[in-house]
């Protein structure tokens, strides 16, 4: 195989730096600011207002503060696992973005197992969360970690069902292939509305957001699995979480809203408009609905979403075959 290995490795490192910067700035910093502003708006408050014009620099200031903070490792913690856990979450969040096409040609790598890769990487987050919850040696953290494991394992199935329905419709697992199929046939939200609904519910649960935020339920578990984390390690957990949420929004854009396609404006602008619309939807849900109970959460996944999803796969298969 004629692969230039030093060049490939150099390219991989450069792309990692670019993607990480992109994620830290666009998803985590801007995401937190948006969350607070939209939350304020929905609750008739102002949100952050003092740092910079209209509070725009609030999260920049917060990030600088977090960078300077001391790392505290609890005495009874399992040090190696404790320190590795935030990295697993952040890296898993980062890896999701490898298969997201921002515009024609603007993708890190168009894998022919694109959405399978995405699902696999998204499923790695839970290991970081579980490890962090265990290693903290704190009952709230452990409970948060266990809740997260139960929740994420349950919701991976409906998520995968949503992905499978789209893959069947497009006849490919490649994200670029799926966008191209939508440019030919129209957005899949029209053909695949049930899959879209299932995907969105499962994605909200997968990224541990309200109404599915049991793993970090502030009012019950302090902050769940990251109670014991301070400074940059806490920030890495936050980064991983926001990167994952934006990645889910980007994937929903790619799978159901036609990705980069759209008239007049350049493709990458269309991509970001659609992605932020879905991000707004996630935030809207967060500030509107109360948290579910654990049994309601699991019942919703196993007794409603999964059977409905399987039925929809059957219908999709029938439609394609006949």
């Amino acid at each position: 195989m004629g692969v230039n290995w030093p060049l490939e490795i150099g390219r991989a490192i450069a792309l990692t730096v670019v993607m990480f910067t992109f994620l830290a700035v666009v998803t985590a910093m801007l995401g937190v600011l948006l969350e607070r502003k939209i939350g304020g708006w929905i609750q008739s408050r102002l949100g952050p207002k003092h740092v910079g014009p209209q509070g725009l620099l609030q999260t920049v200031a917060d990030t600088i503060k977090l960078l300077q903070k001391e790392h505290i490792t609890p005495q009874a913690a399992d040090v190696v696992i404790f320190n590795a856990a935030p990295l697993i979450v952040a890296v898993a969040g980062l890896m999701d973005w490898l298969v997201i096409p921002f515009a024609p040609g603007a993708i890190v790598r168009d894998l022919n197992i694109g959405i399978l890769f995405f699902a696999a990487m998204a499923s790695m987050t839970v290991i970081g969360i579980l490890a962090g919850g265990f290693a903290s040696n704190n009952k709230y953290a452990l409970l948060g970690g266990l809740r997260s494991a139960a929740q994420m394992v349950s919701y991976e199935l409906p998520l995968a069902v949503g992905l499978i329905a789209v893959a069947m419709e497009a006849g490919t697992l490649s994200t670029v292939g799926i966008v191209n199929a939508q440019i030919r046939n129209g957005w899949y939200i029209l053909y695949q509305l049930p899959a879209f609904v299932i995907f969105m519910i499962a994605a909200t649960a997968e990224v541990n957001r309200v109404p599915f935020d049991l793993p970090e339920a502030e009012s019950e578990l302090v902050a769940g699995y990251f109670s014991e984390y301070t400074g940059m390690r806490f920030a890495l957990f936050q980064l991983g979480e926001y990167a994952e949420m934006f990645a889910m929004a980007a994937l929903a854009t790619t799978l159901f809203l036609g990705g980069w396609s759209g008239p007049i404006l350049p493709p990458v602008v269309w991509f970001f408009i659609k992605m932020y619309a879905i991000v707004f939807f996630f935030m809207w849900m967060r500030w509107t609905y109360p948290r579910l109970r654990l049994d309601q959460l699991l019942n919703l996944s196993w007794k409603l979403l999964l059977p409905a999803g399987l039925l929809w796969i059957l219908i999709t298969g029938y439609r394609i075959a006949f």
Partner: protein
Amino acid sequence: MGELAAFIILSVITLASAVVVVTSGNIVRSALSLVPTFLGITGLYILLQAEFVAGIQVLIYAGAITVLILFVIMLTEGGTGLRTRQVNEQVPLGMLAAAVLALILIAVFSGTEWPKASGSLPQYTAAPIGEAFLTSAVLIFEITSLVLLVSLMGAIIIARRER
């Protein structure tokens, strides 16, 4: 050249974390070490151009099976944080058995003539795998799902009885 380097790095990752799995006194660490082991094997699959199997390996083994193992450990009383002994008094006997097995395996592997498969690899392995599941390997596929269904029902029955 690069492929060889990748193979060696992946093998070292796989084997080193596998050693931690079987020697660590802390079973949570053992379980977590399974993750790099599985990921190393995923890398080997990618080197073999079996990208679909690699994706499934991460999704099922690294993502789901490890979480299941961790979940069980953390829910089991006294399972966590204890110094569990992974070896017993029969170390010499075990080493002997392992050495004999290794010898037999090496003899078999070096004695077998490995024919090169004819034809080229398909560009895109997901579709042929799916096709095989529903045509030539349909019986195996269905029986496997039946076994999984039975174990699923068994788990539910066991969980019910405890109530």
